[in-house]
């Protein structure tokens, strides 16, 4: 590498920025992208001249908004969820003055590491389409259903914090989110278009599939019309709900069998995603149910809502899908917030069971809480004993324990964490490294389920109200029907009652 093709610029904040002029990735429509010599960051120069407003927005994004997001509690953990621009540079090149933004390089796990698509970015679209999953992608790239829950948690968390800082992404789609199903990882990219209500209006209406119905419905109104709806935090909520639905069910929640305009496909699209939009799984209004006979064989089984209804995602997510696509579809204020989604997704992870069929394509499923649990994806019934911990908490230190609609499905070698045993600890970006360590683990030992205490100072078997038995660290407690376990003496400590499902 000769030194001559390395361009050195000074960013507006004085930082020295270098990139290799010869190695330009011309792919992007908006920007020409260059790598730094050590490949740790990229510099993207806008193809079109940026107006003052866009420039001011970029300055705010790299400074004020970055601080609002990352200099708060849990900010360090949050950084990994975004590819956030870090500097602005200006370059006079071939007589043209160019504005560029510097951003970290995507982590290597966001590129296909092998197979047909080796080297390509893991754009979310690859994993959200049944046809691409069933026909194009290699099996070893798809990950498990559990990894998609983890991906959704990360996306919801990132959006939650943006919204908490008063920022709307405005173009949330599987195009602007990289995902890695092998690690359950996600990262939001292309942040240049952030919308700040009242300050920086949106540049775009969004990406098809993710544009909120009210935006599409009013797209032809002039800018000044007060009835015109543009991207905002409320439309981000629609896009987030669509993303989560698509990553967990691999189909679009509004693309069903209903034909709104048989003469014109574009008009039909506009109506069925806009003013006439209807959830394909609406419990009463069934006009938009997908017609199986019209589906390509590679869209099945995921396209069949009778076989794989949204309720397979469990009780917490089902309620939110109903809010997002029934109550809130045309009433933006009723849409679940990103925070609602994050919480429901986290609670859903605790309902997960590994499928006992080694050939199962999804590997994990949400325990369906019936007497005969079975994997919804491959139909394999669960065989054996399945312990469930039903959690209780004390609203106030002096009050008695109450059921909190929170459960943990136990499987072998699964870990118990602090957020299970203490209601004040949440598994979000604010979680400290110390609180990330398991405090116990579950095993099927000689045909009996046990919980081994690894780090709980105060663990008690309180099945007998008159005789609380302490479970010392390194020892275990059997999990049998009706057993009551108290996880500590703090006011925030939880109690659980064991329930056994036998099949």
């Amino acid at each position, binding site marked *: 590498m000769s030194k001559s093709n390395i361009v050195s610029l000074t960013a507006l904040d004085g930082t020295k920025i270098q990139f290799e002029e010869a190695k330009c990735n*011309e*792919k992007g*429509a908006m920007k020409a992208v260059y790598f730094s010599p050590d490949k740790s960051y990229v510099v993207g120069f806008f*193809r079109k001249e940026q107006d003052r407003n866009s420039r001011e927005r970029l300055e705010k994004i790299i400074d004020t908004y970055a601080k609002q997001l990352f200099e708060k509690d849990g900010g360090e953990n949050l950084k990994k969820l975004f590819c956030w621009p870090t500097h602005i540079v200006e370059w006079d090149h071939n007589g043209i003055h160019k504005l560029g933004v510097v951003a970290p390089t995507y982590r290597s796990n966001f590129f296909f590491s092998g197979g047909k*698509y080796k080297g*390509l970015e893991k*754009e979310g*679209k*690859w994993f959200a*389409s049944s*046809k*691409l999953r069933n*026909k*194009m992608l290699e099996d070893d790239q798809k990950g498990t259903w559990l990894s998609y829950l983890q991906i959704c948690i990360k996306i919801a968390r990132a959006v939650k914090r943006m919204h908490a800082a008063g920022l709307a992404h405005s173009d949330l789609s599987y195009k602007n989110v990289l995902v890695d199903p092998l690690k359950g990882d996600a990262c939001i990219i292309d942040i240049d278009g952030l919308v700040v209500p009242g300050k920086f209006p949106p540049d775009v*209406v969004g990406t*098809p599939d993710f*544009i909120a119905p009210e935006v*599409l419905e009013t*797209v*032809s109104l002039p800018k000044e019309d007060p009835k015109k709806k543009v991207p905002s935090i409320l439309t981000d909520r629609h896009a987030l709900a669509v993303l989560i639905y698509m990553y967990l069910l691999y189909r679009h929640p509004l*693309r069903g*069998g209903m*034909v709104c*305009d*048989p*003469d*014109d*496909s*574009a*008009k*039909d*699209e*506009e109506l069925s995603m806009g003013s006439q939009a209807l959830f394909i799984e609406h419990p009463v209004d069934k006009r938009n149910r997908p*017609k199986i006979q*019209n*589906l*390509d064989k590679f*869209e099945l089984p995921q396209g069949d809502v009778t076989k794989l209804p949204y309720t397979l995602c469990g009780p917490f997510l089902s309620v939110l899908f109903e809010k997002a696509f029934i109550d809130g579809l045309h009433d933006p204020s009723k849409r679940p917030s990103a925070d609602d989604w994050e919480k429901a997704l986290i609670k859903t992870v605790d309902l997960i069971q590994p499928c006992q069929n080694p050939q199962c394509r999804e590997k994990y499923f949400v325990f369906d809480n019936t007497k005969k649990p079975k994997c919804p994806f491959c139909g394999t019934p669960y065989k054996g004993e399945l312990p469930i911990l039903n959690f209780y908490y004390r609203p106030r230190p002096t009050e008695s324990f109450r059921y909190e609609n929170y459960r943990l499905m136990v499987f072998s070698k699964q870990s118990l964490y602090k957020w299970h045993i203490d209601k004040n600890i949440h598994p979000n970006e604010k979680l400290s490294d110390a609180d990330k360590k398991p405090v116990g683990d579950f095993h099927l030992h000689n045909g009996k389920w046990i919980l081994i205490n690894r780090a709980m100072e105060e663990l008690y078997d309180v099945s007998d109200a008159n005789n609380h038995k302490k479970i010392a660290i390194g020892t275990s407690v059997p999990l049998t029907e009706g057993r009551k376990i108290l996880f500590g003496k703090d006011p925030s400590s939880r109690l659980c009652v064991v329930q056994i499902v036998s099949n």
Partner: protein
Amino acid sequence: MRRLPVYLMLDTSGSMYGEPIEAVKNGVSVLLSALKSDPYALETAYISVITFSSDVKQIVPLTEINSVNEPSLSAGGCTELGKALEVVSDCIDREVVKSSSEQKGDWKPMVFIMTDGEPTDNIKLGLDRFKKTKTGIVVACAAGTAANTDVLKEITENVVSLASTDSESIKAFFKWVSASISTGSQKIENSGQESSGMDDLPPPPDEINIVV
């Protein structure tokens, strides 16, 4: 799932012999390989290739992008562009799924015409037939500097020239047209105009020169 039918009409006449036909081959090849690694195109795009010289042939029937093999192209003969417009109209009538009240049909087909632009037949009949066919965006690409853009302008108002037929230009071009069908075309639909003028579409990337 709605398919996005894409008809490629390629001039393989004698005037294309040599460097031009190689450029078109290269264009098709990079177009196919770009689309085969684009998840959006892999999901919805279906491609057909029609060549026109003394004879007009649909050498690739409308086929899912992942299954399209690179067609073999050779140049020779005259430029029966008028006949080609008839053939593409027949293919569209036969292959594109129409909407009914029971089933969502395909997107309106996109038609790309690549030529060096001097038809040897009378295009009038074919042009009339083509104008009656329901199409989405029709883009005529003048390959090379010798192309007659006036004739192409009769077929469609969207005439462009590609200074380069590298994969990035063509992919950028394809993405632009594809995005136009899903979102940009709403504007056109709302104003009640079937045909799509360049001004109503999202701005094309720098790779594409618009011929006005």
